[in-house]
C-alpha cells in the first residue's frame, strides 16, 4: 500500500523540527546537557580538590560539603564532578572508537561481501561471544600504569562487534535499494557510492549507534573501575563506588558517598536511551503513531 504523500523527511530542517518537538528526545537531551554543564564548569565551582583531605572524616552533606565527605575527609561533590569528567571522556573516546571500528568493518563487509565479509563476520562473532569484561580483565590487569585514555581505547577495541553487525545489516539492505543500483548502473565508483548514496541514509542510524556506544562505554568504565581495573591515578565514578564499598560506607550509613555516584550514572545512561528512542521515532515515522 503506497502512501500518496511523498515522504519529505529527507530535508534536514524537517528532521530537526520533529526532533525538537519529540518529548523523549528533549527530556533526555536536557538531562545530558545538565550533567555536561556540570562536568565542564564543575572544576571552577568546587571549593576543594577531589583527593584533598579537606574536611571532617565521614561527615554528611552540609553547607561546606554539599555531598558530605568520605571516610578520609575528601569532598564527595568534587569527586563526583571530576569523576563525571572522566566518565564523559571515556564515553567519547571509547564510544567513538567503538563506533568507528564497527562502522568501518560493518560497511566494508556489507558492501563488498565475499571473502572479506566471511572473515570479518567470523571475527566479529568470536569477539562478540567473548565478554568484553573478560578481555578487559586480562589486558588491564597486566598494564602497570593505566590512564583514562588507555581504558577508553581498550573499551573501544572490545565494544564494536554489535555495531559492526548492525551496520552490516543496514548496508546490505541499502545496497539493494533502487537508488544504489541506479548509481552503480550509471557508472559511479564504489567509494563514491558508499559516501554519497549509502552514508547519508545511514547518518541518522550512525548517530543513534554512537549514542548507545557512548552510554555503553560509560557503563563499562564504571564496572571496570569498580572491580579495580580502572585508571591507577585520578578519580572516577566507579572508583568512588569501589572505595565506598571497600570502606563499608553502606554499613556505616554514609549513603552520600555510595548512592549519588551511581544515581548520576543511571540518570545519564537512562537519558541517553531516552534520546535514542526519541530519535528513532523521528527517523522512523511509523513509530510516531504509537
Amino acid at each position, binding site marked *: *500500500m*503506497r*502512501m*500518496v*504523500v*511523498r515522504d519529505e523527511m529527507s530535508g534536514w530542517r524537517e528532521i530537526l523540527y520533529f526532533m525538537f518537538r519529540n518529548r523523549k528526545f528533549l527530556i533526555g537531551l536536557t538531562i545530558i546537557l545538565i550533567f555536561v554543564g556540570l562536568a565542564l564548569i564543575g572544576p571552577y565551582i568546587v571549593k576543594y580538590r577531589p583527593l584533598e583531605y579537606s574536611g571532617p572524616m565521614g561527615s554528611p552533606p552540609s553547607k561546606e560539603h554539599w555531598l558530605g565527605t568520605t571516610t578520609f575527609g575528601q569532598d564527595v561533590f568534587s569527586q563526583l564532578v571530576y569523576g563525571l569528567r572522566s566518565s564523559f571522556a571515556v564515553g567519547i573516546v571509547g564510544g567513538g572508537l567503538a563506533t568507528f571500528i564497527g562502522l568501518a568493518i560493518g560497511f566494508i563487509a556489507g558492501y563488498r561481501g565475499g571473502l572479506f565479509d566471511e572473515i570479518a563476520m567470523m571475527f566479529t562473532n568470536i569477539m562478540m561471544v567473548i565478554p568484553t569484561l573478560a578481555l578487559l580483565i586480562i589486558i588491564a590487569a597486566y598494564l602497570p600504569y593505566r590512564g583514562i585514555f588507555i581504558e577508553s581505547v581498550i573499551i573501544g577495541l572490545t565494544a564494536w562487534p554489535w555495531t559492526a553487525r548492525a551496520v552490516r545489516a543496514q548496508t546490505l539492505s541499502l545496497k539493494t535499494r533502487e537508488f544504489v543500483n541506479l548509481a552503480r548502473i550509471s557508472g559511479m565508483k564504489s567509494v563514491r557510492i558508499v559516501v554519497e548514496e549509502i552514508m547519508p541514509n545511514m547518518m541518522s542510524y550512525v548517530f543513534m549507534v554512537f549514542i548507545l556506544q557512548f552510554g555503553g562505554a560509560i557503563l563499562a568504565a564504571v564496572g571496570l573501575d569498580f572491580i579495580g581495573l580502572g585508571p591507577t591515578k585520578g578519580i572516577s565514578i566507579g572508583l568512588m563506588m569501589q572505595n565506598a564499598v571497600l570502606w563499608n560506607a553502606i554499613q556505616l550509613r554514609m549513603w552520600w558517598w555510595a548512592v549519588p555516584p551511581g544515581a548520576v550514572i543511571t540518570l545519564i545512561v537512562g537519558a541517553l536511551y531516552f534520546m535514542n528512542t526519541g530519535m528513532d521515532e523521528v527517523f522512523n515515522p511509523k513509530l510516531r*503513531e504509537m
Partner: protein
Amino acid sequence: MIEVLKIEDLKIYYQTLKGEVKAVDGISFELKKGEILGIAGESGCGKSTFGNSLVLLKPPMKYVGGKVKLENEEVPVWDFEKMKEYRYKKISIIPQYAMDAMNPIKKIGKMIKDIMEDRNIEYEKIENRLKERLHLVNLPLNVLNMYPIELSGGMKQRVVMVIATLLNPSVLIADEITSALDVSTQKAVAKMLVKFKDEGYVKSVIFITHDVSILYQIADSMVIMYAGKIVERGKTEEIINNPIHPYTKLLISSLPEVGVKHSEKPLEGIPGQPPALLDPPKGCRFKDRCPVSMKICEEEPPYIQIKENRWVACWQEVKKHA
C-alpha cells in the same frame, strides 16, 4: 447479469500529520457477476488504497463518504468490527505483499488450520477443497507441510491465491499480484485467476495493476484512475483500441508494441508527476500534464456516461456530447 458490487462516490482519505490526503476522492462503478474488472493507473493514483479499503480500513485510512453495496446490501466499511463478517468470507484480497503474507515460522498447513479454526470453519469440511485448489495451481500437496521460506516467490504467490479464495468470496481483489513476477509467470498467474473465476470459485474479480497490458489479457472491463479519481471506464477492448481521455491515450501509447522498433516509433512516457493529494489542484487533476488542456479544465469535469458501458471525465467529451 447481477451486480455483485456497486461503488457509489466512495471517498477514502489518509489522516496525516500535515492534513488529509485525498487518496480516493469520489469513485463510482459496478462489478457484475463473472466479471474481471481491471483498475489501472500510476503509482499513487489511489487504486491500492481503494482495494485495501474494502477489506482493511483502519488508521491512517479513514472513511469519508460514499457507499459500498455488495449484492445490494450496504457494506459498513467504516465499522472495523462489523466488517469481520465480510472479510475473507465475502470480500477477499490477494495483497501486494503476497510473498510476505504468511507467518514465517509456521507450517503453511498449520497456519491454514489455525485460520479456519479462528473463523469458525471446520477444517475437515474444507480440506478436500483446499487440496483440489492446490492441484489446480500446480502445487504439490506437501506444500502444506512446508515453511514459507522453502517456497519460491511464485509458489508463495500461488499459495496465497489459494488461501484467499478458499471460502469462495463474492469479490476477490488482486492487488498488483503480477508486479513482482517475470513475464511468463505473470501470464501463468493471470490465467489461474481467470480459471478461478470461470470455475465459480470467486464471483467477480477486481484486478489492480499499473500494467495495462496484463489487463488486456484477462480483464473484461477497465477503470482508469488518476490522482484519486476515475477518468475513464468501459470495456477493456474498447478502451485499448479507442482510448478517449487524454491520460488513457498517453497510457496506452506508452505501451511498447510487439514488432515495432524504437527507431520507428519511439516510446513516449508521460512527462511530469501526478499532483500531491494533500491539497489537490482545483479542477481537472490531469490538466497540468494534459496535452490538450483548455481554460475550462480549471473546473472539475463531470464524470459522464457517453454510451452504454462507457464513462469519461473530460471536458472534451462534454463538449462533444453537449
